[in-house]
């Protein structure tokens, strides 16, 4: 079944996909380590947020961050993004009228929003351990900064990866995505990295 990206459903689908794949279990049997994906806000994200389904998915992901951790947004560029969209850290995100907000975003000048929220990102943390995806969650600013690997790039580039339009190696090799961490470890486990990205790209995305 096709799911919206980004959304909690997509995260759940990815979790199920990885943990039910026998080949992944085999190739990643020795893998120990977590990833922090830093998905940077860009013009394409703002364009996609004009689609109420995608906006809803994004807001639900933010809403999945426990209340006590949302304090970490305060004073960061990510809070700047919420403010630019007319939201706030303390509000009940689930009560937002998504259709109205999507319309409002469509009327906004993307340059103004991007200027106000320069460097804002949606951070996704994934914890892999011996062939299993143990956990996948949206991270608050500053959380899991010590992850074994950090993958950083614009929303539009991550979207290409998720939709299977480009593979991770191509995006990293061409410098579109930046990968930080123990590169020797990663190169020794390229089969696991490649299998995971293939599984991620195999999830049908609702357009």
């Amino acid at each position: 079944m096709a799911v919206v990206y980004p959304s909690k459903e997509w995260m759940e689908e990815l979790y199920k996909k990885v943990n039910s794949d026998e080949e992944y279990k085999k190739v990643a049997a020795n893998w120990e380590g977590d990833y922090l994906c830093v998905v940077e806000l860009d013009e394409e994200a703002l364009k996609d947020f004009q689609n109420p389904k995608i906006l809803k998915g994004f807001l639900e992901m933010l809403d999945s961050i426990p209340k006590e951790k949302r304090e970490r947004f305060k004073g960061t560029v990510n809070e700047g993004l919420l403010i630019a969209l007319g939201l706030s850290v303390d509000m009940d995100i689930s009560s937002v009228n998504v259709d109205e907000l999507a319309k409002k975003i469509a009327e906004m000048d993307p340059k103004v929003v991007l200027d106000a929220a320069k460097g804002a990102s949606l951070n996704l943390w994934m914890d892999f351990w011996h062939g299993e995806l143990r956990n996948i969650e949206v991270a608050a600013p500053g959380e899991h900064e010590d992850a074994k690997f950090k993958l950083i790039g614009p929303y539009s580039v991550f979207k290409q990866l998720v939709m299977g339009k480009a593979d991770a190696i191509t995006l990293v090799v061409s410098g579109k995505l930046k990968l930080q961490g123990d590169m020797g470890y990663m190169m020794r486990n390229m089969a696991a990295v490649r299998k995971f990205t293939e599984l991620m790209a195999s999830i049908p995305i609702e357009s």
Partner: protein
Amino acid sequence: MPKFLDLDELTEEDKMLKEEVHRFAAEVMRPASVELDRMSPEDRIKPDSPYFKVFKQMKKLGYHKINLPEEKGGLGLTPLQRYMIFEELGWGSLGLATAIGVDQIPFATAALFGSEKLYEEAVIPWIEDDKGKYHGCWGVTEPEHGSDYLIALREEPDLLRKFGKGNVIIEKDGDEWVINGQKSAWVSSAPVATHCGLHAQIKDAKFFADGAFCLVPLDLDGVKKGKPVDMLGMRDDPQGELFFDNVRIPDHYTIVAPGFFYGVFADQLLCLTSCGMGAFAVGLARACFEEALNYARQRVQGGVPIVKHKNIKLKLYEMFEKIETARYYVRKATEYTHRKVIEQKTTDASPRHARAAQIYAKKVAFEVAHEAVQIFGAYGLSKEFIIEKLFRDARCMLIEDGTVEVLSLEAADDVISNYEKDYYDVEHITKLMDHFER
């Protein structure tokens, strides 16, 4: 059909492919290579040159697509089949085989590591080309840097500093990259190429291996080509300089961006080309051996064919032994390397094993060619027999695509540092990056 016992169990498809490629090597490549060898460098690149006839025929047969994965427009060949094609091409002509090899480098690399946009713009027209409209070359060697380009990743930082600046510099400018500088006269196929897979050093690079790899259409403003050079051997593959004066390419034409992965890419690309060169060398060695064997069976001296002379028997056996050991080692290294880079796409082939395939087979080709000339006696020195040309080609092999000395030194570093490791270790790259980042 090339007649020799193959120790691998070949399928009917393998046998048919081998026969088809051998026919192309014998009937198209070989006669054209002899003709080209005797032409002036200028005549070799004229539109009516036999070079282009071979190239057009090769494109029609689709051999340019052999290293592409099937999902990227490849022919769905096995690593063994790719090896067999390369050996037969090397048998036909080392120069033309090299031309067919370097044609693939910019485009196959773009297919493996480039963006979808670049694939559609540049790779698809090249895949579909059956008239020889597109021709790639590989821009590595520079006036101040030859084989040291290959060892830069494994050198000590202090020595690396002494390597100086690259002669081709690339710089980001908005959505484009700007290229300036010169590649030296030894770029195979440069005088006839339409595109170059170019290695360039980034402006203000911290160290010599701090570079990028890009696809450069050679009809862009600012590109100039030097005159084709007159060489000892491999004369059937024109070589010449490339000059870049503020040449601008779009961002997506830079396939490998500066950084850690440029190091991995350079290492792994050399694994692929090492297997290709190894297979060419086996083909060339086999061609020399077969010429010598046939000559020795017919040439009568002392009342008997010289093949009955014990010293000739011994030489022929030793040549056979060298070729057979080279073939099966290069095949094994090719199977491993292609599995890692083309099929599984994990870019973790073993540099020391791939280099050994190239170095060992190149040395074998030269030794076999040398002995073959000796069997021919004075006739081996005359242009009446092809062995004279094959010997000159074999001599060139010890230098082209990296001298055997530099390749051996680079492989030695990998052996010494990583022999016990059963995986591709990138510490040599991370160490350099850490050192120069400080």
